[in-house]
């Protein structure tokens, strides 16, 4: 009985210790941003590996999510004789929810895991310690550019996801199922609000970008420096960031809409 309690307490303390370390790390990373500005090429290289390399998966999934929305939405709406509102359904679900959330989940799987593995391996092979020996702050040199790159890439990826999805929905709805092209766009424009829908979607994707890269960078930096530790950290990155994205999405939606 006491043992279970002790275990519970120990895991609780461990959790809060990790949370504290994560926050201190975030403060360090953000503190490193000003010294990053004259060396933007570091960030550019990270945007390449975090953003550009995630582009393919985002484009393909965005297209197919949009096409599925078009197909499913049409089948439901046609029962009510209101298939003209297909554009509204596709665009609102993409811009408000699916764009930021699915892009963030894919981003966590594609880019977050890679970040964690990279930083964890740097730690395991003592590259980070070597940097410290050379009086280079590894947080500023390694972590800050990766964090900034995630922060910049994620909203762009989510926007691309939504835009491609809307086009995919148009392709299925208008091209294959015969919804009127003008109605598809005009109903969409009449119902989607720039501030309520698009801005809030962008804010969501920025929050997700910060959280996912934060988790990925922290897990890598905090990993046990063995091959097993790195593999565990990578798994944790994907699991935790997916859960946090879904949970935060609910909270943000409750606040915004």
């Amino acid at each position, binding site marked *: 009985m006491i043992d279970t309690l002790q275990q519970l307490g120990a895991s609780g303390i461990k959790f809060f210790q990790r949370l504290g370390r994560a926050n201190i790390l975030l403060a360090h990373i953000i503190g490193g941003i000003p010294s990053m500005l004259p060396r933007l090429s570091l960030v550019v290289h990270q*945007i390449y590996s975090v953003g550009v390399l995630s582009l393919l998966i985002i484009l393909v999934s965005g297209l197919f999510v949009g096409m599925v929305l078009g197909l499913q939405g049409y089948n439901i709406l046609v029962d009510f004789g209101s298939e003209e509102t297909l554009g509204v359904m596709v665009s609102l679900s993409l811009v408000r929810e699916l764009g930021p959330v699915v892009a963030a989940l894919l981003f966590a799987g594609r880019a977050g895991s890679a970040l964690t593995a990279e930083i964890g391996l740097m730690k395991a092979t003592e590259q980070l310690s070597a940097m410290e020996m050379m009086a280079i702050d590894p947080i500023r040199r390694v972590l800050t550019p990766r964090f900034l790159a995630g922060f910049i890439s994620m909203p762009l990826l989510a*926007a691309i996801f939504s*835009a491609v999805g809307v086009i995919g929905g148009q392709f299925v709805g208008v091209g294959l199922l015969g919804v009127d092209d003008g109605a598809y766009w005009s109903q969409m424009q009449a119902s*989607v609000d720039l501030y309520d829908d*698009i801005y809030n979607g962008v804010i969501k994707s920025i929050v997700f970008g910060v959280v996912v890269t934060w988790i990925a960078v922290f897990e890598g930096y905090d990993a046990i420096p063995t091959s097993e530790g790195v593999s565990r950290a990578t798994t944790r990155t994907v699991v935790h960031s997916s859960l946090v994205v879904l949970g935060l999405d609910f909270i943000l939606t409750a606040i915004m809409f």
Partner: protein
Amino acid sequence: MNTRKTEVLVGLFIAAGLAALFMLAMKVSNLNIYSNEAGYEITANFENVSGLKVKSAVTMAGVRIGRVSDISFDPENFEAVVKIRIENKYNTLPKDTTASIYTAGLLGEKYIGLEAGGDEENLKDQDKLKLTQSSLVLEKLISRFVDSFIDKDKK
């Protein structure tokens, strides 16, 4: 050379992302409808505005010429006060214009339809429309319809 390639690709990526945002803003949302927010405001009192929302369309002859900018309740006359913002280029509406609340389609959105009168004077900012017709409440209509049948049966 390699650095140049990554930088070009990153540039392309950022441009594509911004283009996607731009497309969402221009093509998907109502930005182009909002482009000229400026206009003059008139008010109208309605007995019932159920279903009408802020930003609902205000049309004349089926063409959208403005939007509902505010809906409030007047506790003295127990009426709804609707503020309507009409675009500046439509400044020749006669003073005795009437406003009615219509429904687009059977179950569609409510909107305000304006009908021009014959007055020589034009509506100005903060003017008030005198003749209004309320929103159609489906339950009231049905109950009236049913009542008329009951009356017939009695006779």
